[in-house]
């Protein structure tokens, strides 16, 4: 199965050959796989240097002149380090652009906290006029980016290194829409991006214990498909949200806003609430952070059995 970063390079090549406004700028990553784009679209690829805030401001200058910038590097440097540039040079100035990260959450598991990023999705969601996507498969990125990259918006795409492995029909992948990955009646599991894999595994385990869980899959954090949440929770009355984001702000908050004022709902959030010290694989850090299939399973059970902490 193709990785999202490889798909990013392929999508740039395809769209760049059709659209001479597309300009790609990277901060010394992915430059090897982007060489086909660089060769096919001469003068529109820049490995600009290791200077992320300035790279974002330069991209704003591109946008002002009518180009369609794509700016790419590792999430903590592209978003957290450069947030004032995103806020002032894009948000305040009503300019459009595309920001594509790798290394969201703890994808660079073995490199430590300097290369982790838990707040990128929240930060980008704060910008008026932004759209925020966390595709969990190569095809999702291709569909979502192709649909939205020319929108008058600040588009953020967080590319996971750990695709969920589920194939959806392309027509079911729509910006701002949740996909129901499994129907159920007793609890709703809302999974963001790569956590779909764990959510489906948890649902399988729960089924063996006669707990019927529905799995809603989120690739678009903003805009957010509130209707899909409301329709599911109206049926189940219970929701567990699993997201590789800061626990302070993310999909769980969006779910609470969607349901607000509609009556009783039991809910739990599985998210990141501390700096993750220590190393290991992505799966190791999922375990360390409470973002595993068994954690999801236990969270659903605690709601079903009224063991809310």
């Amino acid at each position: 199965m193709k990785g999202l970063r490889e798909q990013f390079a392929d999508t740039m090549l395809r769209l760049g050959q059709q659209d001479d406004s597309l300009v790609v700028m990277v901060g010394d990553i992915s430059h090897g796989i982007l060489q086909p784009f660089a060769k096919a679209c001469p003068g529109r690829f820049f490995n600009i240097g290791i200077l992320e805030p300035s790279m974002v401001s330069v991209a704003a200058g591109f946008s002002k002149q009518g180009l369609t910038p794509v700016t790419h590097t590792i999430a903590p440097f592209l978003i957290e380090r450069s947030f004032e540039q995103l806020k002032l040079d894009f948000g305040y100035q009503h300019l459009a652009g595309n920001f594509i990260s790798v290394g969201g959450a703890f994808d660079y598991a073995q490199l430590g906290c300097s290369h982790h990023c838990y707040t990128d999705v929240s930060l980008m969601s704060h910008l008026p006029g932004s759209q925020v996507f966390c595709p969990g498969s190569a095809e999702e990125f291709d569909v979502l980016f192709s649909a939205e990259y020319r929108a008058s918006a600040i588009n953020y795409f967080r590319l996971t290194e750990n695709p969920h492995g589920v194939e959806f029909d392309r027509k079911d992948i729509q910006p701002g829409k949740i996909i129901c990955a499994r129907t159920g009646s007793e609890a709703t599991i809302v999974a963001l991006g790569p956590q779909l894999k764990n959510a489906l595994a948890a649902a399988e385990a729960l089924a063996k214990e006669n707990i019927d869980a529905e799995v809603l899959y989120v690739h678009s954090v903003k805009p957010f498909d509130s209707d899909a949440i409301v329709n599911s929770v109206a049926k189940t009355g219970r929701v567990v949200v699993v997201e590789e984001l800061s626990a302070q702000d993310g999909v769980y908050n969006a779910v609470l806003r969607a349901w607000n004022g509609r009556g009783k709902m039991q809910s739990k959030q599985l998210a990141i609430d501390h700096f993750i010290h220590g190393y290991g694989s992505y799966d190791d850090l999922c375990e360390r952070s409470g973002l595993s299939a068994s954690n999801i399973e236990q969270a659903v059970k605690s709601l079903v059995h009224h063991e809310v902490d």
Partner: protein
Amino acid sequence: MLNKSLRRRIVEIVTRAKEGHIPSSFSIVDVIEHIYGHVLRYDASNPNWEQRDQFILSKGHGCAGLYVVLEKYNLLSADDLANYSLKDGILGGHPDRTTVPFVEASTGSLGHGFPFSVGIAIANKIKSLPGRVITLVGDGECHEGTIWESAHIAANQKLDNLTVVVDWNQSGAQLCPVDDLPAKWAAFGWDVHVFNGHDAADIENAFAKVGKVGKPLALVAQNIKGFGASLTEGHGPWHHRIPNDAEYKELMEVLS
């Protein structure tokens, strides 16, 4: 002294609104007047003319100096300036390109307008547009890392369509002195020219180099903060001070 009337206008609008940076504006108004009067190619009837040159005030707090020049060249109206920093006005204490025609960048936080200008200059090359970009930064602003990141990018990209004007009025030297600011720009690969930013002939000679040196051009202006009135000169409390009635009268007399 150049531009006494523009300096009076700066004092008028800042005093009325009780907002503004008079010394910073006095420091740069002579250079900005020359840029709009003699250097920039623009269409007064079409702020978005694609072929135009662009001026970007990266040290946005000196914007009163920009507004009075835009008014002089009929790119802003007297009504616009009458409402400077007031409710329903389009002109604020820092420039906003989304509301003000001929303002090319929304600035205020230092270190943003310059990399933004680098992007415009690269984009003009990608699109084969003839527009030149002139950006004015402060010497205090040159403490910001993005200034040097962007100086590096511009040199690497061989941006001969980009000029930076450095308002070298020694503001930065008060807290974090730089021993030889022109040498720093030269070390980053820029063509550097030092000039007196309050002298007409020197200003003209400096800007004659724009677009003619085959690489990014740094015009380092030996300016005087608050130049025009002894009251406002220097680096004391006048940085963001509003004249009282007596001071207003004194400034108007000195500048008459």
